[in-house]
């Protein structure tokens, strides 16, 4: 038997992994046109030459980004958002869990946000929230699971670190993302890709 197992749509596991990891990929160009302008300073590289192009300057600080309204979050229903940019693995979720959690915001300290990319090998955890255990996972690739009440610590599995937690602030009814605790899968630096 070959090691290359194919799923129902005929994709190998490696192909499927790549597909899930990039499910919400927005190109950098779309990102620039769309939302990034509040925090991204454009500079022109190679000005005056045929290779001149506009690229974002290095972001050295985490952007402060509005992500959701507290009053609109329903218990145990994750709401997806992108942060700190809209590049690969910027997909995150914010969820009101109904139980107090490490880093939780809101009157009950039960609203937390986490990145969706498994910190083992980058499988997407999108859609894997479990309300009975307040966890993300198991990752479809190698079954890692994360405890969202405890800063995304690994419950069981193979990841090399906790799931990156998105730092939140609340202003009135507005929830803002203001930073990330932990390196996002696939990147060498959270802010420089």
């Amino acid at each position, binding site marked *: 038997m070959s090691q290359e197992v194919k799923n129902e749509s005929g994709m190998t596991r490696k192909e499927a*992994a790549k597909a899930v*990891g990039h499910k919400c990929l927005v190109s950098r160009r779309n990102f620039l046109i769309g939302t990034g302008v509040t925090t991204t300073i454009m500079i022109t590289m190679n000005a005056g030459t045929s290779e001149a192009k506009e690229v974002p300057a290095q972001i050295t600080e985490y952007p402060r980004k509005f992500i959701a309204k507290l009053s609109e979050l329903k218990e145990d229903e994750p709401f997806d958002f992108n942060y700190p940019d809209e590049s690969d693995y910027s997909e995150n979720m914010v969820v009101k869990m109904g139980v107090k959690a490490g880093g939780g915001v809101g009157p009950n300290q039960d609203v937390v946000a986490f990145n969706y990319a498994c910190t083992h090998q*980058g499988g997407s955890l999108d859609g894997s929230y479990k309300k009975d255990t307040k966890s993300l996972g*198991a990752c479809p690739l190698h*079954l890692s699971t994360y405890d969202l009440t405890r800063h995304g*610590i690994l419950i069981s599995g193979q990841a*090399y670190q906790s799931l990156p937690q998105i730092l939140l602030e609340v202003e009135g009814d507005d929830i803002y993302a203001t930073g990330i605790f932990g390196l996002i899968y696939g990147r060498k*630096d959270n802010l420089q890709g």
Partner: protein
Amino acid sequence: MSTPYYIPDENVPLPPVDAEVITTACDYCIVACGYKVYRWPVKGGKNGGATADSNAFDADFPVAPLGPWVAPNQHNIVLHEGEPHHVVIIPDKDTEFVNTDGDSSLRGGCIAQKCYNPEKPTRDRLKSPMMRIYGILQPVTWDFALDIAAEIGKYVIKKHGHNAYGVKTFSYQYMENTYAISKYALRHINTANFTFHDTPSDVSSTPGFRDAGFDNFGPAYEDWMNAETLLICGTDPYETKTILFTQWIMKGIQNGQKAIFMVPRKTAGVAYAEQNGGLYLDVTPGTDLLVVNAIARIIVENGWQDKEWIEKWVNDKWGSSSGFGQGTRNTPWQWRTTWGKFQTNGFDDWAKWLLAQDEFKLENAAEVAGVDAAKIQLAAEMMAKPKADGTRPKTSVMIEKGFYWSNNTGNTQAISALGIIVGAGGRPGQVIGRAGGHQRGGVKGGKYPRNKSPMKLPGRRRRALDTDTWTMAGHTRLAHVIGTTWIQSMLGSQQMSARFHELTRGNPHQIQSINREKILETLKKRVDSGGMVVVNQDIYLVDPIGNQFADIIFPAATWGEEDFLRANGERRIRLYQKFYDAPGEAKPDWWIISQLAKKMGFSGFDWENSNDVAEELAKFTRGSRKDFNMVKVAAHREGKTLHEKFREMGTNGIQGPVYMNDDGSLEGTVRLHDTTRKLATDGPAALNMFNKKLTHFNSQTGKCNIQKSPWSLFSDYWEWMKPKGDELWCTSGRANERWQSGFDDTRRPYIVQRWPDNWVEINEEDAAKRGIESGDMVLLSNDRVPSLKDTTLGVEGSDYSFTGQLANGNVELSEAAVTAVAMVTRAVKPGVMYMDFLHASQPANALAGRVVDWISGNYNYKMGTAKVAKIGESPYKNSFRSMSFAPRDIVI
């Protein structure tokens, strides 16, 4: 040591294009995934960039899933030739074997954190030889420490006999080291007081496999994937040999394999199997034999056994009586079988016995084992019921410690018979073997002197010495302990610790001088007065054996600090390369032993480097499962050293036994006992050898022995240990994240954050009855821990049984207590608790009886019993930074 405060980094340096790439394999579990070390100097500040043309991976960042991502825990800074260097250590993304897909576990994945770095928690590596003077371990020179150790060693042997010099050593930490150690201990000191880290006596771990003719590590990893039904007993490979699960078994399950787990605890692998058409047989500790024989009975009653296979490959009366070619009396085979308890005249004789045992009837076995009878029935059908088209399912059987350390002899006999009747063993996808624990790094440089052992079975041969009982009784005068905690990893740990203290620090004769003669005079008085000197060789100061009891400490070099050879669980042999400097004056164990041996006056220890040792030991692998003598032959033909030849093979290595083709190329062995393999008809040429195990089983005839497995040989101990009153079973094992329990994992901030304290899983029902919640601090106690008082000579047939030992007054009862953080969970069977197997200060092994399996001489470690009570709340109950109480059985 690390504190539980892990602050994650938000960026990581990448190796530049010109970083050096060095191949190695993981140091930890049996699977031994292939890894690449990327090394570049800190000086100059030249790191790799995010674009493919600017880093050593030729990859654009962010990388794709399964890509060469570098987690911050995969980077470290080490000294290489005295200069600081970055190292990034990630699984080999190009490997064709073992960890295909470039996969890794959490353990190996973070192995960069193993490396000594004075700015990290590894800073307390042992860096200098030390001697305890005025109660304090002080640095001394190698020459001084070795001289004192050798002189007292010679004195002990001369005055108190060879068996007074005890050697307790790892069995796995690289072939060069184990060869040197066993050459020293067995060939030269010639002591019967010798054993390995995981057993009190130097005996087979799986007596039933040995009797049946199965090698422990015959199968190839692809066989575990290609089986249509896979029975896994006593382990969840996802937790403890991850890549064997994620790259092989999990792919099998995705292709329709039915995986049946027989364990009392549901972890992710078990839950995944159950969710995908498999089965969870939640067996009560120690009752595996009953379930296995109930399955066998259903198969026989329905005539589902593999008749063709049995006809061809199972010994009849004459075959099973033909001995093992070692004489008729002095073989393990003979003493186990001549009572008539195990040996049969073949399948029919075995089946007749099986059907005559009431305890194996489905309803009886189901009741005692606490497993739903319908699930046992289903397991039998999955394993052996012919399909609609009349073909049989391809069935394989995997066992590991939860199983063979529960009823060592009985369980391994029973599973061998079940394996035989379902046709497992000897064909692709139809195999039987161990999953494995540590890697296979043992090569013996001497023969165990069995006839010097004072232990003798009634009417039969001598048995390897139970070194724990021997030491507890005060017969060991010098304990040479190499790379093991000894005390916490053996049973009745707390009594052992107290006794070790009495024999060492509790003895009035303590070194209070730096004068050589006075030191020797003191140590001689110690051993002559019934005390014990401890020499400890390790990479860290281990508590208590090194920290509290040792007189002399030798600092050892380890993985990455020397070139070493080792094999994995499919006999794949690789070179684990040196890539950085060992800390301080730490030296590899083979070097320490060679220096000590020379001072003892032994010859044959003049090695200059680890390749010299490897070239000497290669010939002693001949005939074994990791026979690689022909690699040495090929290397020398090509003008290379043995290590150089293995270096060229990189992470692929080669599977033993290795054969050389006529054109000089080397060929590995995919699986042992491969009845489908065709060997050259004109026999082995030149230095090649064809071992029987290549194409047949390990018995005189080459066929399997089908053996009986009587419950009555174990049931007295099981009934005795069984929880009484409000006691619960308290079994133990590894947790994935804390697999490397004793030294590395306690120095990884992330792992210590995840598991900051000893823990015990308690079922929700049992916890509720006792008012225990997750996060509570609990006390586990046992006021009736049995232990053997002294080694005995068996005279009557029942002398060695637990009942016999009790009757003869050789069993002592004592109390034990350990604390733990409670984890209340649905994922462990009611009536059973599960504890981390080796916390240095709160060892689970303290709660299990220090009584060896009377037939094999191994411990049944998993048979612990305890009362549990809340004593308060742990700091983790209401804080969020550390630990998690979520269940380990969450799957997709």
